[in-house]
């Protein structure tokens, strides 16, 4: 959408800009909380161990870190009984396929029980705040109200079906709940769990190179290279040097297929995505196989590079670029966390740093949900009801040929789409998604991508239960399987992580 808007030089109206910002923000907040509690927390929290916690001591712990009301001894006893019930009813196998009791779990039983309670509460929380998506985007996660040139959702104080005063009030209520949970549950939990895993502040670093396209334009006609104009500034950090944010030049992005199941005429070189090619060339091995040969082609991901270098994208990249750009609130929050953990900024280059950065980013965005809603209300109040730019709707108004780059920051990192429009049709279309940057294979020079680099040196206590590998991979929040959803009636294990020597 933004790629087409860029190609046709479309400026979206103010209301559309703000609504897009709001949808982005609530989606990040929901996505990050769900990622933490329902995917990543189980790498750090031992649910079965929570059964041996003392509910009174758990209540004391909860009171010491937050004013969140669900924190009585009885409340935690109730949670414990509920978990016990599920563990006992073996036929459910509800917590199957996990690594309970693994020696790498360091939390005391009380912290485990508190986290389990919040795991359950996060489910109820998301069921509630997701209603904001229904108001603004119709359906999550595949939102339906986006349209080239703006949004398809009407803005009209006098219409019941449009964004009106009632809807604004509903949004403000939902956003207050969203922010409250982030401030009083998510952030305190991360701060409570992190001290038990400080060894992970020295593990899982990876590349030390970070890239962000920047996003969330705070004004109309925002200059993407001006860090004041974007909530997430654009830029590049190289070799873990936080004293300098390099400007981003999109011409320096190239994709290699040397180790990917695609072919180029000359695979020693990368192609800029505006002239990118996707020619499938599967060279095996055919399944079932024991392992992939990383000297050959071994993945469906291409290898994107910036100025010939591998890059990490995502919350850590965004927060480091914000921090190094001197964004006041980012610096305040990161410094306060570093102070609590009594650690230097270099600990951010790690698995734990990714967990912390994702949380900081959630706090930052949750704080803006209400002010941005008020910005929308004020703009509507001025009588501006425009939601869509109509001047370029007719293909007859387009140039014979145009190129566009759509850039955004998704929860998982920098996302770019490149389009070539010719005679009113798409002549070429290429996308580089965040997990392609982070999960990138080796390139023509053999340089590794972020996951591969981050796993080097990770200690694994028990190769048959590699929870340590999952900690680092999950810290990137990979998006690898938005794909097949066939139900397996036999309950077969579909995903298995195997450690090779």
């Amino acid at each position, binding site marked *: 959408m933004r790629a087409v808007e860029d190609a046709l030089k479309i400026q979206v109206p103010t209301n559309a800009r703000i609504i897009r910002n709001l949808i982005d923000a609530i989606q990040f907040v929901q996505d990050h909380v769900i990622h933490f509690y329902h995917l990543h927390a189980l790498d750090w929290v031992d649910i079965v161990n929570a059964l041996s916690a003392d509910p009174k001591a758990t209540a004391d712990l909860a009171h010491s870190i937050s004013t969140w009301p669900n924190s009585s001894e009885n409340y935690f006893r109730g949670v414990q009984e509920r978990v016990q019930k599920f563990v006992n009813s073996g036929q459910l196998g509800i917590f199957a396929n996990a690594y309970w009791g693994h020696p790498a779990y360091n939390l005391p039983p009380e912290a485990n029980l508190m986290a389990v309670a919040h795991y359950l509460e996060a489910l109820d929380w998301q069921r509630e705040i997701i209603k904001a998506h229904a108001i603004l985007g119709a359906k999550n996660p595949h939102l339906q109200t986006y349209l080239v040139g703006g949004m398809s959702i009407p803005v009209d104080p006098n219409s019941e079906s449009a964004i009106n005063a009632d809807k604004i009030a509903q949004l403000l209520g939902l956003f207050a709940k969203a922010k409250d949970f982030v401030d009083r549950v998510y952030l305190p939990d991360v701060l409570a769990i992190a001290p038990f895993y400080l060894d992970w502040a020295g593990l899982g670093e990876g590349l030390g190179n970070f890239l962000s396209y920047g996003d969330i334009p705070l004004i109309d006609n925002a200059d993407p290279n001006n860090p004041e104009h974007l909530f997430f500034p654009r830029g590049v950090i190289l070799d873990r040097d936080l004293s300098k944010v390099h400007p981003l030049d999109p011409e320096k992005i190239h994709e290699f297929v040397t180790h990917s199941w695609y072919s180029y005429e000359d695979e020693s070189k990368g192609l800029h995505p505006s002239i990118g090619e996707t020619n499938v060339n599967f060279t095996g091995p055919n399944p079932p196989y024991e392992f992939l040969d990383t000297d050959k082609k071994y993945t469906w991901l291409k290898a994107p590079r910036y100025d010939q270098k591998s890059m990490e994208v995502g919350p850590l990249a965004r927060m480091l670029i914000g921090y190094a750009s001197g964004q006041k609130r980012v610096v305040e929050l990161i410094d306060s966390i570093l102070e609590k953990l009594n650690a230097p900024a270099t600990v951010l280059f790690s698995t734990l740093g990714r967990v912390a950065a994702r949380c900081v980013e959630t706090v930052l965005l949750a704080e803006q949900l209400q002010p941005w809603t008020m910005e929308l209300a004020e703009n509507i109040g001025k009588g501006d009801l425009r939601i869509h730019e109509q001047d370029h709707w007719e293909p007859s108004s387009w140039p014979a040929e145009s190129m566009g780059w759509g850039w955004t920051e998704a929860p998982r990192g920098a996302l770019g789409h490149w389009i070539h429009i010719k005679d009113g049709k798409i002549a070429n279309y290429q996308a580089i998604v965040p997990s392609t940057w982070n999960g990138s294979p080796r390139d023509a020079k053999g340089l590794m991508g972020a996951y591969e680099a981050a796993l080097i040196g990770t200690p694994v206590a028990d190769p048959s239960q590699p929870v340590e590998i999952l900690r680092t991979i999950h810290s990137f929040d990979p998006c690898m399987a938005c*794909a097949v959803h066939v139900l397996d009636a036999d309950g077969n294990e579909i995903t298995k992580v195997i450690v090779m020597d």
Partner: protein
Amino acid sequence: MKKTLILGVGNYLLSDDGLSIHVLERLQSSNRIPDEIQMVDGGTCGLDLLQYLEGVSNLIIIDAVNRKNAAPGTIIRLSGDQVPAYLSLKISPHDIGLPDLLATAKLRDLYPQNVVVLGISPASLELGVELSPVVAVQVDTLINLIIEEVLQIEAI
């Protein structure tokens, strides 16, 4: 009044995995499902679907279903303990599938009294928005089974 929900899940872009969308469209235009019964195209939404289970007593799920030794095109009905509900090891939150959704519903006391899965064993999961021929010929039978299921529930 006990609430009944017909929930379709699956990826429309991957031929037979998109079974439920084809079925829901047909059900909707057939006018054979009473108005008070809600039909939701859950697509690939995962845990976001939890909100639709609130207050539901009878849940009919439509999905492509794999079962050992079931030839492609076989109609499969699962009920009671046959319906898989477990939290699985996963790499990405996008792996969250039906068993995770149902396990989570159990944890939050949202699991409906009656849950039935009705589906067809897939022949193809290739990119494409059409069903494979072996699955397509079974769709009429599946739709009749769903309507029978609904009528039985309504009769109780």
